[in-house]
C-alpha cells in the first residue's frame, strides 16, 4: 500500500494529476470510489481485490469534463473501458495516467491511454460461478422459457437507471430514453417499457461492452444484466469475429465485411 500512496503523492506534487480517482474503505467491508486532490488525504486510498467499481465512468461526467490531468486506479475492467472510451474520442483533451496492480500486486504507473492499450491483456473477464451457471441454464432454455424468465425478472425493474449510470460506456448527455418526440421507449415502467429499454441498452452495447459487470453490480433489484451483454458478445464473436478491445474506432455496428455470414436473410 506504501508504493501506492507514494505514487499518488508524487503525481499530485508534480501536477501530473490534479485529481486522483481511487478507492477507499466504505460501509462494512465495501470499497467505494474516492476522489483525492490534496496530498494529505492520500492515506484514505486503498487498492485491493475487493475494489470492483469501474472508475472510468467518472471520466466522462460533466463535473470532471474540465479537469485535464486525472489519475485513475485501473482494474482490468477499467483499463478495457478506458481504451474503448479513448477510441470513441471521449478523452479529447485529457492527459490521463493510470495506477495498475501487476501480477504480484504492486502498483505500477502508466501514462496515457495509448500506453494502457498495449498493456491490456487479451484474457477475457471471468464470470462468477453463479453467473456461469445461470448463463448455462439460460442457453438451454427455449424461447418461451426465456420470455417468461425475463417477464419475471423485468417485472421488478423500476427504471431507476442505476445500470445506465454505472456503465462507463453510457455517457450520452441525453439518452434515447429521454427522447419523447417520438417516444422511443414507452414511458410506464411496465414490462413492455422495461423490455424495450433493456433491449435498446443491449444493442447500444454491441461491440462496445467491456464486460465489467458494473451494470449488474449497481442494480438495486439484482437483475442478471450481465447475462444479456455477455451472451450478445458470445453471439457476435461467433458470427462476426473476435471482440477485440482496442483504440480502433472500428466496432461491430459501424463497420462491415462485404461477406458477413448469416443464415436468415432470404
Amino acid at each position, binding site marked *: 500500500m506504501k508504493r501506492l500512496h507514494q505514487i499518488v503523492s508524487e503525481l499530485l506534487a508534480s501536477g501530473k494529476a490534479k485529481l486522483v480517482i481511487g478507492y477507499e474503505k466504505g460501509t462494512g467491508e465495501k470499497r467505494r470510489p474516492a476522489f483525492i486532490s490534496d496530498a494529505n488525504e492520500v492515506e484514505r486510498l486503498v487498492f485491493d481485490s475487493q475494489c470492483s467499481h469501474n472508475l472510468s465512468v467518472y471520466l466522462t461526467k460533466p463535473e470532471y469534463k474540465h479537469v485535464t490531468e486525472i489519475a485513475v486506479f485501473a482494474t482490468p475492467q477499467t483499463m478495457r473501458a478506458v481504451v474503448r472510451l479513448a477510441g*470513441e*474520442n*471521449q478523452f*479529447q*483533451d485529457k492527459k490521463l495516467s493510470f495506477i495498475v496492480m501487476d501480477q504480484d500486486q504492486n502498483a505500477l504507473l502508466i501514462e496515457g491511454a495509448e500506453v494502457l492499450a498495449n498493456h491490456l491483456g487479451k484474457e477475457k473477464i471471468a464470470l462468477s460461478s453463479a453467473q456461469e451457471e445461470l448463463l448455462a441454464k439460460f442457453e438451454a432454455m427455449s424461447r418461451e422459457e426465456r420470455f417468461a424468465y425475463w417477464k419475471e425478472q423485468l417485472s421488478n425493474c423500476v427504471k431507476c437507471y442505476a445500470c445506465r449510470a454505472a456503465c462507463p460506456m453510457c*455517457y*450520452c*448527455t*441525453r*439518452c*434515447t430514453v429521454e*427522447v419523447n*418526440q*417520438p417516444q*422511443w421507449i414507452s414511458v410506464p415502467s411496465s414490462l413492455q417499457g422495461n423490455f424495450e429499454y433493456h433491449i435498446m441498452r443491449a444493442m*447500444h452495447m454491441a461491440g462496445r461492452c467491456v464486460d465489467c459487470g458494473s451494470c449488474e453490480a449497481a442494480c438495486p433489484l439484482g437483475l442478471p444484466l450481465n447475462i444479456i451483454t455477455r451472451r450478445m458478445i458470445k453471439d457476435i464473436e461467433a458470427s462476426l469475429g473476435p471482440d477485440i478491445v482496442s483504440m480502433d*474506432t*472500428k*466496432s461491430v*455496428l*459501424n*463497420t462491415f465485411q462485404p461477406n458477413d455470414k448469416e443464415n436468415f436473410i432470404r
Partner: protein
Amino acid sequence: MARIGVFICHCGENIGGTVDCNKVAKSAESFDGVVFSTDYKYMCSDPGQTLIKQAIAEHKLTGVVVGACSPRMHEPTFRKTCSEAGVNGYMCEMANLREHCSWVHEKGEATTNKATDLVRMLVGKVKNNKPLSPIKVPVSKTALVIGGGIAGIQTSLDIANAGHKVVLIEKQPSIGGHMSQLSETFPTLDCSQCILTPRMVEVAQHPNIELITYAELESLDGFIGNFKARIRKKAKSIDEKLCTGCGMCTTKCPTKKIPGEFNEKLGNRTAIYVPFPQAVPNKPVIDKNNCTYYQKGKCRICEKFCPTQAIRFDQPDEIVERSIGAVVVATGFEVKGTDFFPEYGYGKYADVITGLQFERLASASGPTLGEIRRPSDGKIPEKIVFLACAGSRDPAKGIKYCSKICCMYTAKHAMLYKHKVHHGDAYVFYMDIRAAGKMYDEFTRRAIEEDEVKYIRGRVSRIYEKNGKLIVKGADTLLGAMPVEVEADMVVLATASVAHNDAADLAQKLHVSYDENNFFVEAHPKLKPVETNTAGIFLAGACQSPRDIPETVAMASGAASKILGLFSQNELTREPVVAVVNRAAPPLFSTCAGCFMCQSVCPYQAIEKEEIKNRAGETIKTVAKVNPGLCQGCGTCVAFCRSKSIDIQGFSNEQMVEEVFALLNND
C-alpha cells in the same frame, strides 16, 4: 394545427377497378387532422391538379396526401402542383394505391381497407413533415465520358460544342469502338470509316475535349455536380509528346504474329502497334504480354529505330484525378465468339466466323483488303451460309433477349458478298426478320429480291466439316419443316451482342444498377432511358442494351442534352433529404456525445467534426456536423446514432414512427 387534404385518384380503372375510391375518401375525412378529402378519376391530369390547387386555396391546407400511383412515378408532379399552390412541396406525400394495392389484390373490402390504411399511414407521416427547400450545390462543368465508341464520341462532341469541358477516356489504344471495325453500314451502305473518322479527328482536335486513351476509370467518389474521378492511364511505354506517329517502330518490330484484336484475330499485328490506320490518336502502344523485351528482357529494336527516342519501357501506370460534374457511360458491347456454340463445332472450324469477323473481311482496311476470302485457305467462297439469331433469343444459352442489330447486318453481309462475288450463293437461316427502322425493311427486301439472297426460314441444328466443305444441317419451316442441308464454303454466325465481361465491376464503381445480362439499368424504361438511378450518371449506346448506330447517336445526343441542362445553371439544386445533427441552447449545444462512430458509417464521408467554442475561443465541445453537399440522404447514420442526435429531413424519426403508429392504431 395541421390542415391536411386527401386526394384519392381512380387512375381510370387501374385503382377504381378494385378499390372503392369513394369509400376511401369518405373514411379519410374522419382521420385526425384531415379537413378535406375527395376522389377524382385522373388526379395527375390537368383538371386533377387544378382540383388540388383549388382545395389548397379554399381550405387553407397545410399538407396534402395523394392516394394514387407509385411516388417513384408522380411524386415530383404532385409536389410541383402543391408548391405552385403555395404549399411547400415536401408537405405533400403519396400513398401507393396502385402498384402496392389495386393491381396486386382482388376487388373487395379487404383491398379497400388496405387502401384506407395506406392513406392513413401517409396522413400520419404528413402531419410531421416540415417544409424543406432544395439545397444549392456548386456544379463543376466538366463531363466524364467513359468509352470512345460512336456513343462516346457523339456525346463528347455535343457537350464540347456547347462550350463545356469533356474528359473522354477509352480502354483501347484508339477511339472508334466497334463502328470503326465495320466495312459499310446499313441501311445506306456508306462506309463506316468515311463517316466516323472525321468525327474521331474532331474529337482529338476539339479544344474542350481532353482525350485519354488506353485508360480506365479507377474510382468515382462524390455525387452529382461534385464527382471526383480517378482515372488509371495504363502505361503505353511511349512518350506521346515526342512520338510523331511515323510508324517506323511498328514496321521494324520483329514480333509480327500476334492475332490483332481490331481484325478480330483474322489478321496479325506487331507487339508495338497502332490498331488500325485511321486510329486516333495515331500513336503506337506496346502490348506488354507479347513484347519480347517485357517477356524475356531482350530486343528493344523499336527503341533503336525510333527517330525521336519516344520509347519509354519503364513508364508506369499513372492515376490522374479530375473533378467531374456528370458522367456518361458509353462502354458499348461485345459479340459472342464462335466457341460459344457446341452445335457449330465449339469454334474448331476456321471457316465458321462471327459477323464482326466478316466485317473485317469485307473492310478495305481489313486483312484481305476487302476481298471475301475464307480464313482456312484464303479461297473465295462460292457459297456462304449466314445464321441469324446465333445465341440470341435462346433461353437455354442464357441469352433471352433479341440483339436487335443482327437481322440488318446479316442482310448487309449477304448483300456485300453478292456485290463482290456475283456468282456466289448466299443463304440466310432466320427465324424472323426484324428490320423495323427507317428504310430498314426496304433494305432487307432489296437483299432478297435484287441480290437473290436465299432466305430459309428455320434454325440450323448442326454444322460439321467434310472434305473442305461445311455441311450446314437445318430445316425449312415454310416447307413443312423439311430438313435442309447446304454444303457451304463458309458460315457467318450473327452472334449475340452481350455486355462487356467487366461491365458489372464498372457498375459497382459507379453505384449504378445492372440487370441480369450485365447491361446498365436505366432510371425508367420509358420516361428516363438515358438516366440512371444515380443522379449525375447517364447512359449512351449499347451498354444499356443492344442498339444500332442511329439509335446510339440519338441516345448519345439525349444524354448530352441532359448534361447540358445540368450545366446550364451554376448551382445545382438537390433534394433536401439530408441528415442534420441537432443543435440546442447552451450549455448543451447538441445532444451529440461526440463519439464520431457515425463518421465511419457514412459512405459519402459527409460527417465532419465541429468545435463549439466560447467567446474566449476555447473549445467547449466537439460535435458532429453533416455537410449537406455530400450527404446523399441514406439515413444509415440516423438509425445508428445511439443518442438520436442525427435526424434526416423527409424521413425523420418522428415521421417514420408516426407513419407506423398511424397504420397500426387504426381501430
